[in-house]
């Protein structure tokens, strides 16, 4: 049986918040009997974006992580609900019955992803429905997907095995797999948000002028794990190693360039680090 999956590309999210606004547009002032009651006008909607800056001026980047209900295969909210107020559809979408769930605050508290929002106006837990009311009407996408300008959000209708294969092929990850709830929302390039980079710039002095060094060979090694990666500096002398675990301890950067003395820099990696400009001096 084919099921619905969402794939979110962290590298393509630009924090335009169209998804947030489209979700509010679909649900504020609208009642979808059997699917969801209205969302309140102010307050969180059922999708939000967390932002993370990495690095330090002048070498930084920003990653945006859209968060919503993971529509888990083994949903804790369903376990916490009474009277079958939360259930999973055959296509995998997890639904909160808007009538049955009234007053069940424990449903909101049960979600390890904090995706269930308590609606104080209607006394009901609410969350993303993957626009099930629209899908059932023939739509092939959710409101958030429709308004997303970059294609960061995509929906896939696949057999579970097919989704597994897709995830393997594209290195898709779920958020917080250790929670073991079986999310069906996958992330591409998740490391942009969860991991850090180590970067720097390589330069030299020619006569009295400073010049960027292009083509220097930079390798990254970690105490204990040996050499991890290497790359060459670009026209600005910049290098950047990504997808490094936060708080992963001491790393060594080694810079080699023909006709120059090799330089090494030690870095104690906690979060993303810009080591600054490393000057190479000529071999005497």
């Amino acid at each position, binding site marked *: 049986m084919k099921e619905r999956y969402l794939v979110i590309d962290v590298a*393509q999210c*630009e*924090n*335009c*918040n*169209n998804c*947030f*606004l*489209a979700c*509010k*547009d*679909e649900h*504020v*002032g*609208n009642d979808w009997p059997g699917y969801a009651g209205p969302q309140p*006008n*102010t*307050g*969180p*909607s059922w999708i939000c*974006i967390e*932002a993370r*800056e990495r*690095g*330090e*001026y*002048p070498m*930084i*980047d*920003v990653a945006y992580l859209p968060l919503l209900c993971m529509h888990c295969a083994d949903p804790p909210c369903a376990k916490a609900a009474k009277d079958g107020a939360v259930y999973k559809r055959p296509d995998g979408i997890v639904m909160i019955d808007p009538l049955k769930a009234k007053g069940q605050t424990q449903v909101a508290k049960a979600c390890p992803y904090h995706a269930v929002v308590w609606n104080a106006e209607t006394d009901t837990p609410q969350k993303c429905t993957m626009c099930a009311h629209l899908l059932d009407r023939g739509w092939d996408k959710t*409101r958030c997907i*429709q*308004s997303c*300008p*970059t*294609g960061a959000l995509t929906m896939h209708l696949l057999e579970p095995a097919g989704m597994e294969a897709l995830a393997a092929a594209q290195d898709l990850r779920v958020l917080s797999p250790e929670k073991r709830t079986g999310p069906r929302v996958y992330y591409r390039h998740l490391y942009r948000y969860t991991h850090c980079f180590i970067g720097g710039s390589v*330069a030299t002095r020619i006569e009295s*002028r*400073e*010049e*960027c060094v*292009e083509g220097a060979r930079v390798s990254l090694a970690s105490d204990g794990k040996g050499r991890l990666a290497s790359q060459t500096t*670009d*026209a*600005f*002398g*910049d290098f950047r190693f990504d997808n490094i675990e936060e708080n992963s301890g001491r790393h060594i950067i080694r810079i080699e360039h023909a006709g120059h003395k090799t330089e090494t820099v030690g870095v104690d990696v906690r979060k993303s680090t810009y080591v600054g*400009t490393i000057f190479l001096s000529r071999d005497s």
Partner: protein
Amino acid sequence: MNAIVSRLARSKTLADFMFSVLLLGLDWMFGRTARRYPFFKARLGEKDFVVQIRLKDRSKGRYYALKGGEVSSRSGVHESPDVTVIFGSSRCALSVLVPPRDQLATINAMKSFQMGLEGPEELSSWFMETLSLMLNAGVQYGTDMGDGEMRYTTNSNGGPVFVYVRDGRIVRITPIEFDGKDAPSWTVSARGRSFTPPRQTTISPHTQVFKSMIYSPDRLLYPMKRTDFDANGARNPQNRGISGYERITWDEALDIVADEIKRVKRVHGPGAILNGSGSHHLWGILGYWLSARLRFFNNIGWTPVGHNPDSWEGWYWGAMHHWGQSMHLGAPESYGTVEDCLKECEMVVFWSSDPEATGGVYAAFEGTVRRQWLKELGIAMVHIDPFYNHTAALFGGKWLAPRPATGNALALAIAYVWITEDLYDKAYVADRTVGFDQWKAYILGEEDGIAKTPEWQEHEAGIPAKDVRALARLWGRRKTYLAAGGLSGFGGACRDATGNEWARSMVCLMAMQGLGKPGINMGSAQQGTPIDTGFYFPGYAEGGLSGDIAGTALGVALYQRMPQLASANTVYQEVPRLRIPEAILEGHTHGYFTDSKTIEGQFRRYEYPAPGYSPVRMYYKYGGSHMGTMCDTNRYARMYRSSNLEFVVNQSIWFEGEARFADVILPACTNFERWDISEFANCGGYIQHSFNQCNHRVAVIQHKCIEPLGESRSDFRIFLDLAKRLGFSAMFSEGITEFDWCKRLFDATDLPGAISWKDFLKKGYYVVPAPKEEERAPVSFRAFAEDRLKDTPEIAPLPADYTEQTFRGLQTQSGKLEFVCSSLKRYDPDDPERPVMTKYIPAWEGHHTKELYDRYPLQLITPHPRYSFHTMGDGKQSWLNEIKDHRTRIDGYYYWIVRINSKDGEAREIGEGELVKVFNDRGAVICAARITERVRPGTVHSYEGSAVYDPIGEPGSSPDRGGCMNILTPSRPIIKKSHSIAANSCLVQIEKWRRP
């Protein structure tokens, strides 16, 4: 006129006969329509009066008596009808009345006094509108989605949309997804791949949020009057901004406004009425500030608020002198550049350019997918911006953050590297430009002893010299597109004390690299899609129904295609927008014209008051709050309290911004609540063919999706009701409704050749087919680079501005790119503020202005907001305020955000999310602090465009809690000989905010 009727009507006897038959038929139609449509029966019941239709000589006629909702008629002439419609001849009457209604015939008849309307305007106008309602009764529009849901269409500043409505309420607003019947999309083949855009329109956040704006609790739902304002007694102007308001009826409100218009003209004379609008408007050609508003004000006589060229400043006052482009206000043209960029370009330098945030202009996220294609092709990107902007964040690439307001320091240093390392196109410079040697000498330091080296630059703008050399070498060796501004010819860097010299240097750099050669042009694929420029659909700058041939681009095409009564303002007086406070408070000021006709247009200075005219005594403010959008804006708040302003009326949609300063408030409705018609991102005029930002050309009928909320009304209706009181309602509306005008505009476009009015009304939109590959517009500036006649499809520059031969060369005196500007040599060669070639001139408010800098050591930049469209979407309890990066909610209040580097925050003990006061000598704004690495130490970032002005004390002289950062920016023009905003040269200090 119907061809058969026309031929028969050559015989007077036959014409008279047909006229009589028509008049009888009219009676029959009234009855039939009333029987079929209850709304029309109700309409007929609104008034009891007698209307006569007759010939001038009274030989033929019929009169209709409306009584109790019934219409009875008799042949002949009534002795005292209330309303009379007079025709010079039966033939004339037939030309006007026989369907299909020929508006040109009507106008011709009016202009030659062969058609007239007599009687009280309230009745005559009602009658003409009733005829229109009768002819349009039963018109179907929208698509039935089943289950009681209708799908309509409308358009906005952030893309066209489907609007789903049920039971008179908007359910949802979505982008438009094309169906199988819509024209196929274009494909560009480049580097072995094919690129085709997605088959839907994109949508901006400020459009996606619209439902919450329409139903906002801050909507003005009825007219209001200031409680302590009495037009016949005490006016209490000193209380504007702090008075309360009371509800009044429309009749009361319109009577006050109309009486005040008459009174100030009677007491003071022409020129006493000042009107200004924002630079933008809710979308729609007919409702635009360049359309209905102009027609109304031209017919009462008004002093216009003259707009400074806000989007273009440094391009208009500076860059234009190097390459002309006056009809683009100094910006470049952009035809064919998407294809050229995809095929040839090797690097894009984004310089003060954030199209992901600004959408170019009005183009939502159309350009995003094209930039994604550039990235897929491995085209390098560099971002030069004091702020790590949203385009940089999405696409990556080297980020260089110059110190704000250091203008062309970086550009001059790049030129220095090119010169000293032979990295520029010498043949192009020799053949296609003039004056290079003189500029080169300046760059090398031969003129002032200062070589503009990367090291010199580092001292000024702060970019490491090594990075400048690296960039210059990359650029000089690669085919590079320069995106200067999100839309080419925009960019925050053009709006500061050094804005002129920055924009000028952008042109000079491209002149050194061979502008127009393959892969070497301006833009970032934001403009220049291969759509059809030959399909005619007007943009808003073409003046809609304004009739204003002098003040809009109406005369270019639309006046012939949609003939209309002309309108002309008789007041030769203008107040520059940035000097309105001085004009009111001090009674005099001066400005320089924003004149796109020719380069020298900007040299003309005008004085206020103009000779023989009354100073301004009444201010009719039409939307658009200056508090969050202009500069040093406490001045505008203070101005309102002056007794020099005897009367202030504000016509707005929400109670925000400057509405709180009005004596009378007129509630207008949004464009979802009225009829209009338009195209996606089509400005026309000064941004000709701006729809070339879109992946598809989409024409849209803007259905009236829902009824106006409360007692709000369309601007057209408000102006019409005032016109009735002032005696020119027929000249304002031409006797037809907003819906009729939409049909007229439809007929004026090339749509009728492609789709019927009925089908267009039903579906709501039309996708213009893309041209065949061989018919695509050629690349801009290519013909110039190759010294051929201009071959791009625009009527610019005007023939008189070519030197050697029409269409050969640029608009400059030499016809070439000028490093030394002949226009400036003629005008004022010794102006130290604007030298004849671009030089580095330290900002008059910046890191060199020591005394000021010591007190206010942070440089504030205030770019266009990320989520709202200036003030559109902000405040008014819309969902945008819930976005963490737009406003921050602290203790129930939504504060504006100021972004500070972590080092500056640390030095001031300011933590993330804390309340701070941002201040200088001009005022103070309370913000929530965001600690970030996206600006360098010494630079602070906050958006302009707050819709909320919320002073904690006296308006105009107390800190603003709403977020109007424009309170802090200088009102000094970029150069004295200009009318310009220099917002981004602004020194401030920031400290923790302690409530008093």
